[in-house]
């Protein structure tokens, strides 16, 4: 089974685990491919970790700690999911992005917030709470019915993604296979698609400069591939996600919105992506991170906005959030 729970709900996964248990009892051998550690501990007897095309660890699950397994997957000790407090962004200047009383048909209701240069803002909430919908409004995919979006204090007038991109906003969308990539096209063509306007020499595209640009982006995000001319669908999920991020970094956006940037991404790549997000903010970009993984959200955010039913219920400074549990309670709307 190859990532059988990737698109299953919790209850469906439970049913699957029961089924696996029964098959096991009948003497059926099962190879279970997963990147979820808890599943491995729950149903597996032995584990083999593969990295770069070879087996790097093979042992009984009971004899291994999660840290040992993760270290084998990544090839080094990871502490990316630990929060690194960053110097607070200067708040006395005009905010880079300001959203005022935004309301739209897609469920977003009266949302307001500000985002400063150098700040990483986390959006927490359940699926359908309005996180993705808010991102779509800022990026011009959907239009608000009322309210305002300001960039550097000026009304942004974002009527479509093209205007948003021209104004320095980028969105790494929720579903990279559907919204982020042309899967059958080469890595190079995917990387260059948002950069085409700047690649013209006369009426034609300067392919040599394009190749150089693509190579630099691949290098910068350390995307692992056999050739930039091969289809992006041949890459692993983590490397595909790096391609989506890289194509926007090529445009050097001021506001980068990442919607579930580490979904379906292996642990090693996840920590790399988190590191990149921090570097971007350190270099003065404003970043919005939407994630269902609270550990990740807590690791990377300076501030966390909690959404429920299309509106904000909390605006929390990272320092005031004790642990995942308290954030989870805020998301569920339970007051402690």
């Amino acid at each position, binding site marked *: 089974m190859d990532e059988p729970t990737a698109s299953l709900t919790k209850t469906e996964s439970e049913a699957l685990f029961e089924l696996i248990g029964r098959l096991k009892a009948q003497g059926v051998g099962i190879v279970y491919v997963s990147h979820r550690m808890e599943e491995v501990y729950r149903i597996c007897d032995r584990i083999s970790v593969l990295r770069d*095309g070879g087996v790097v660890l093979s042992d009984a699950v009971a004899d291994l700690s999660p840290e040992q397994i993760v270290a084998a997957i990544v090839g080094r000790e990871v502490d990316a999911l630990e929060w690194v407090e960053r110097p607070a962004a200067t708040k006395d200047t005009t905010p880079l992005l300001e959203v005022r009383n935004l309301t739209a048909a897609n469920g977003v209701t009266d949302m307001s917030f500000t985002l400063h240069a150098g700040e990483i803002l986390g959006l927490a909430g359940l699926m359908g709470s309005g996180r993705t919908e808010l991102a779509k409004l800022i990026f011009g*995919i959907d239009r608000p019915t009322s309210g305002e979006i300001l960039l550097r204090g000026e009304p942004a007038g974002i009527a479509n993604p093209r205007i948003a991109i021209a104004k320095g906003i980028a969105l790494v*969308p929720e579903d990279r296979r559907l*919204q982020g990539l042309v899967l059958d096209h080469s890595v190079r*063509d995917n990387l*260059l698609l948002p950069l085409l306007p700047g690649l013209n020499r006369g009426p034609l*595209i300067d392919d040599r400069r394009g190749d150089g640009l693509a190579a630099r982006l691949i290098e910068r995000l350390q995307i692992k591939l056999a*050739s930039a001319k091969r289809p992006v669908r*041949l890459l*692993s999920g983590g490397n595909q996600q790096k391609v989506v991020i890289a194509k926007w970094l090529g445009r050097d956006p001021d506001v980068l919105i990442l919607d579930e940037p580490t979904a379906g991404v292996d642990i090693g790549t996840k920590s790399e992506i988190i590191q990149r997000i921090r570097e971007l903010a350190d270099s003065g970009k404003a970043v919005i991170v939407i994630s269902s993984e609270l550990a990740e959200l807590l690791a990377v955010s300076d501030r966390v906005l909690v959404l429920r039913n299309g509106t904000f219920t909390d605006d929390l400074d990272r320092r005031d959030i004790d642990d995942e549990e308290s954030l989870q309670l805020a998301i569920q709307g339970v007051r402690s």
Partner: protein
Amino acid sequence: MTQTLAPPPPAGAPSRESRLRGIDWRSYAIYIGFAVVFLLFAIFLADDGFLSGTNLLNIFRQTAIISVMAVAMTFVISAAQIDLSIGSVAGLASVCAALAISATGSALFGVLAGLAVGLVVGMVNGSLVTFLGMPSFLVTLAMLGIASGLAQLITKSAPIPILNDAFNAIFGGGNLGPIPGLLLWTVVAVAIGWVVLNKTRFGRQVLATGGNRVAAEYTGVNTRRITFTVMLVSSVVAAIAGMLYAGRLESGRYQWGTGDELSVIAAVILGGTSLFGGAGSVIGALFGSLLIGLINNGLILAGFDNSQQQIIRGLIIIVAVALARKK
């Protein structure tokens, strides 16, 4: 982990790969198929005059109009759309050009009338597909009937002779030295099509739109404008093809171009353009068109009657597409 890291390429492969720009073997199927069919005919039909200069030039001349339309259709299909109306738009344009010439005596007004047909039909097709979100298959199927009906209506189904020598010479009838004018039209259309599809921002955006419209839109491509443009260009090129028929046959008639959409689509698909969009080859489409012409020519020379020709042609197309699709 679904870690599908591609295996490292064997030594020496990267340089060859970069030379071939990552094209896989399937995209060469049309050239191989063309060469094989050509060789077979050259061997078995040598005594029937297949290899004579006149015969080969004839194949070019007979396929020229299909080739010109196939260039535009490559863009349409690459953008994941289809245009079934081109054949009857060609007929309507030939009729309107002929009527304008007989009314004014001016070749220029004839050309303008023909182009106007293409522009109007193209804008209607494009608007219905882009702004009303109707499938291009249905829009252009309806337009096929409308254009053909209109052409019959305004001519009472009679041919309109064109007595303007300049028009007839420019559109298909004339030669430039030893080179047939139709061959020049083909070369120009293919050259422009190749450059635009492979070397311009518009071409890349057409391929991205056809490959994944949502992702293209999320990456800043104006996918509506792209779709509208390819539908518009397809109709305008069909109108030019109609005038090529008119010039070659020295008349406008609603039947010129009838059924061409099928040959054109077959040529484009044979040429390696994906029916699902996202990949297209202009040169491939040219060879697809030539292959169809080659087969027609060879079957006639071999003495097959019309019914046998149709069956064999169908079989060859099925085999060719099957080979081109095989991984």
